[in-house]
């Protein structure tokens, strides 16, 4: 089972209401055979823009993060379930990924165009696609094609 990350924004509520909503969210995952690894509170703050959800306009929200393991085919169901919850303003599930090592290619990108790999490939492609041309030094003293 892969690990996923659920970030939910709950609407502005009292503390017990928030607790019950979080419980409901967690139970949805647990009842479907998921495992909860971590539950994190990211704070209550102003939303970056007003959001209309379930017939209400929200300007403030509580951010929570739930890390859980679950079967891959259940993610769609979770999205539907959390989308229907009136206390959740927005929810999104992403797969957690370990940061992989990336070799920096800035040095190659800053080279003059003629030395850049992509430009060299582009030039090769252009040469391959170019139409065959009659060479004037072919030894014939007349032009063999129609003018």
């Amino acid at each position, binding site marked *: 089972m892969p690990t996923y990350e659920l970030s939910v924004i709950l609407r502005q509520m009292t503390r017990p209401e928030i607790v019950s909503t979080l419980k409901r969210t967690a139970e949805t995952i647990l009842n479907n055979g998921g495992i909860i690894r971590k539950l994190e509170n990211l704070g209550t703050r102003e*939303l970056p*823009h007003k959001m209309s959800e379930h017939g209400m306009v929200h300007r403030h929200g509580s951010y929570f993060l739930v890390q859980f393991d679950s079967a891959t085919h259940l993610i769609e169901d979770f999205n539907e379930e959390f989308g229907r919850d009136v206390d959740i303003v*927005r929810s999104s599930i992403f797969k957690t990924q370990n940061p992989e090592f990336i070799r*920096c290619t800035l040095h190659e*990108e800053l080279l003059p165009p003629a030395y850049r790999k992509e430009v060299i490939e582009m030039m090769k492609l252009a040469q391959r696609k170019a139409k065959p041309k009659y060479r004037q030094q072919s030894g014939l003293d007349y032009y063999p094609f129609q003018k």
Partner: protein
Amino acid sequence: MSNILKIVLNRAGIVPRHFSTAVAATNTATTPTTPGSDLSDEPVNIRNPYKQERKLCILCRMKIHPDYKNVRLLSQFQSPYTGRIYGRHITGLCKAKHDLVQREIFKSQNSGFMGTYTKSVDFTHDPRLFDPERPMRPHKY
């Protein structure tokens, strides 16, 4: 450097010019060398002094992996006027990191952490990583 200079001067058979006559006199006395007997003008094995150091983009240099929850980092790559993501010719990131930053910004915006047309007022005075007025490569259009 002085070693290289000496070797080059020896090879060319030039006596270094000195402005003091006393020094010049002593120098001419020591220089008479017969060609072939001296091994000092053989090629020397040194590192290419003109080889440039490998350039790294700021995220690769600092080993930072952008994450969609780290809004403060991501909004440094966003215009304060339009909320749009700056291009690679302005940010000076390598292609892989720029794509990653862009992906994380979209994720952040979709999950309600970050504005799409606005940049949070809390981040407007953050240190600037680059100058949008002076891109490192000319503008595409």
